[in-house]
């Protein structure tokens, strides 16, 4: 028995090394796809019509929804930032999920609110609305006081309250331009019938310190894959800090929010694919919005955590449909139970939408960490030779370096006007230490955050309402 452990570890490490190498190549292929997509886009050009759009009465109105967790000054400042957006008809809907009377009073005095007779449509099932308030000032803000029901429920209430055909979602943790809506609406106007959503933004600009450069590299890779590369397959997903515009009717038809913007977009993809109609979720690779530059490891950790937790929720939602098929073969009773309570995000299309992301953010960190542990143990016990250890290092750290270097260079290839050479070089060089220490730490973060939830304590004060019906039940699907 003891004699067979050595070869077993050797072969496991060998297989893991090959798998990781192949996964790395796959991720690299996606980056190259992203480069080509960006290049095509740059060659086609994208004229800026913001001035005309600002004045036009034909441009559809946009409702920007925010779900602040409390009445703290940062939340109110974010609401003010939304009100300052440049757009002809922009309405801001602030949904307060079960606020206390004191919190409500803060909002009332901040925006001089009065109780409005504005009706609230019940297109999406949500917890009860206690009151709708509008401002006595000449600003287009609507504050909704509702029973607690969780973040997704609050977003759905926002959609119910909104009267505009387009819903805007901006990340409070992001830096965005006041013209973000004017720029984002353009791709939607080019094909209004087919475009159900637009995700737009840029990667984090590189700053002086190493951690911010690692954050920039992380953001750049996400931007080139989830944004650019996925856009060539019409499977765009928002990256952290990006802005999202979505058609209200599409949100309602797909059953509304079950989590954040990422889940919504996955759901919209799933619903559109299930309905078998031509659709498009567009990507705007313009620096209209980006995640805040992380200063120090703590902020970098937070940035990674937020993204990974949101992704974890998506993966769990998507896994629902796959597990279901697996179970079908074993226990019919369990299957029926699971079917009734299924919360599959994108019906049978989930795997198609998030496959590459799942491999990169869920499978790879686990395999990589396992490979490291086994390799070190194998080296100590003499089961693994130095050649194999070197191969594992090449499949992980060196492959990571090539990916990061590739992301920096491919972005430059795609851009007609290049970035500053010094900035590019600093990012290029940051890819080396990134993969010799930080990458391994990040793997542990990703594994730990895969089991977390996205909803914060403040946003989930008392109870959760039932999730909207799944996509698969709304439309004919393969399942």
């Amino acid at each position, binding site marked *: 028995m003891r004699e067979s452990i050595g070869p077993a570890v050797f072969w496991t490490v060998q297989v893991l090394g090959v798998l990781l190498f192949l996964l790395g190549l796959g991720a*690299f292929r996606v980056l190259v796809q992203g480069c080509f997509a960006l290049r095509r886009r740059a060659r086609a050009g994208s004229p800026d019509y913001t001035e005309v759009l600002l004045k036009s009465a034909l441009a559809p109105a946009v409702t920007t929804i925010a779900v602040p967790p409390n009445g703290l000054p940062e939340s109110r400042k974010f609401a003010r930032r939304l009100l300052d957006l440049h757009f002809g008809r922009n309405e801001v809907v602030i949904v307060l999920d079960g606020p206390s009377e004191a919190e409500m009073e803060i909002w009332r005095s901040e925006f001089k609110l009065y109780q409005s007779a504005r009706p609230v449509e019940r297109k999406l099932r949500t917890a009860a609305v206690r009151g709708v308030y509008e401002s006595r000032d000449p600003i287009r803000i609507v504050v909704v006081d509702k029973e607690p029901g969780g973040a997704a429920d609050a977003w759905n209430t926002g959609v119910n309250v909104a009267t505009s055909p387009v819903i805007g979602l901006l990340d409070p943790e992001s830096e965005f331009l006041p013209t973000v809506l004017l720029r984002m609406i353009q791709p939607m106007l080019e094909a209004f019938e087919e475009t159900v959503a637009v995700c737009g933004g840029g990667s984090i600009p590189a700053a002086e310190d190493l951690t911010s450069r690692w954050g920039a590299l992380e953001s750049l890779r996400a931007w080139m894959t989830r944004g650019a590369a996925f856009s060539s397959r019409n499977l765009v997903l928002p990256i952290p800090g990006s802005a999202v515009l979505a058609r209200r009717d599409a949100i309602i038809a797909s059953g509304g929010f079950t989590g954040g913007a990422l889940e919504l977009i996955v759901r919209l993809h799933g619903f559109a694919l299930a309905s078998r109609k031509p659709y498009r979720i567009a990507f705007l690779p313009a620096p209209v919005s980006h995640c805040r530059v992380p200063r120090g490891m703590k902020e970098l950790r937070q940035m990674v955590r937020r993204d990974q937790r949101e992704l974890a929720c998506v993966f769990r939602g998507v896994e629902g449909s796959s597990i279901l098929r697996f179970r079908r073969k074993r226990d019919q009773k369990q299957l029926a139970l699971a079917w009734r309570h299924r919360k599959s995000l994108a019906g049978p299309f989930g795997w198609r939408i998030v496959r590459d992301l799942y491999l990169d953010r869920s499978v790879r960190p686990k395999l990589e960490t396992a490979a490291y542990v086994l390799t070190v143990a194998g080296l100590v016990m003499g089961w693994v030779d130095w050649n194999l250890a070197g191969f594992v290092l090449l499949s992980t750290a060196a492959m990571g370096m090539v990916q990061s270097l590739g992301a920096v260079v491919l972005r430059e290839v795609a851009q007609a006007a290049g970035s500053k050479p010094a900035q590019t070089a600093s990012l290029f060089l940051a890819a080396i230490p990134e993969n010799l220490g930080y990458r391994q730490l990040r793997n542990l973060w990703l594994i730990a955050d895969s089991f977390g939830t996205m909803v914060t304590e403040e946003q989930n004060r008392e109870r959760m309402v039932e999730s909207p019906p799944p996509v698969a039940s709304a439309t004919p699907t393969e399942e």
Partner: protein
Amino acid sequence: MTRIELSVAALLLGGYALFFGVLLGLLARRASRVRQQAATAEALVPEIRDTLVDYLAGSNDETRIREFVRTNRQDVANAVLSFQGTVSGSARDRLCDLALQLALVQDWGQETRSKEPAIRRAAYARLAFVCAYEPCQRVVGDLVTRALEDADPEVRLPAARALAQSGSMAEIGRVFVLAASQNLMIRILLTEDLRKYSAELCAQAVPAILKSDDPKRVLAALDMLVAWERALPLLGLHELFEHRDRQIRIAALRLAPLVPLTPENRYAILRELTDTDTEVSTAAALTAGRLRLREAMPSLARCVRTGTAELARMAASAMAAMPPQGWETLEELAAGPSAAAALIASVALEKAKRKAGA
């Protein structure tokens, strides 16, 4: 076997890293060259613009301009185009004449055959600017008019904008028809350009398209008319109030305050207030309020009492816009037995009084 794997992986990754290193070097060179060119242009463009301003002011000395054209042809073309929207009349003609003399117009004509979409689009945008000048039109020929049929919408757009600027009324009508069948982005841009011809278009092009069998085009045309936000000499709108497509009926109701209030229109608005489709009746309530239709008061009051929340709110707002009779009715409704109607009526009344400073 491990050694082979290691060698292959090392070779592959090393090759990639080397390739990226070299590529980065090349890109850095390209970037610095582009930056240098941009810096040169940045320094030169104000000089070119100054020279062009002198020329537009009446100076006949073309020596410097020709020198610039010889050394920085592209920058001169960009500088000429930068006057778009700032010069008109004889100054514009003079500028276009200069572009013609310097053979820039011919260059742009050549560039319309480029395979690069960006170059084609830029060429058409430039030609669209100079086509306002008749001699340039002769050189360009029907290139711009033919571009209206181009497969690329970004080419159709400058062509249409050129015709909207300098075309005959028939061509402008054609642009209107084109706009009604294009995507919303193009429609928005052309709507702005066509606004100044709103009255003339209402004579022929608009009635023709409103009689179209294609509801999408009719709707698009109505949306454009509403977006002009101008009083329009358009007759026969009442026919659209009976259209089978509810979206068209709603759009026609939104347009009604901008066209002459004929007895037919008035009757149709009153009738639509009782439509079973709440979106239609809501639009009718909004229109009745804008037109201050006092005879709509009973229907509006009924909408407040029995309509959906949105319809009731709109009807109450419409009544609030018609003091004193509307205010009196709202006061009665506010004191009525229906709590929902009372709240809506009192909020609308309070809002109207606050607005009037009462």
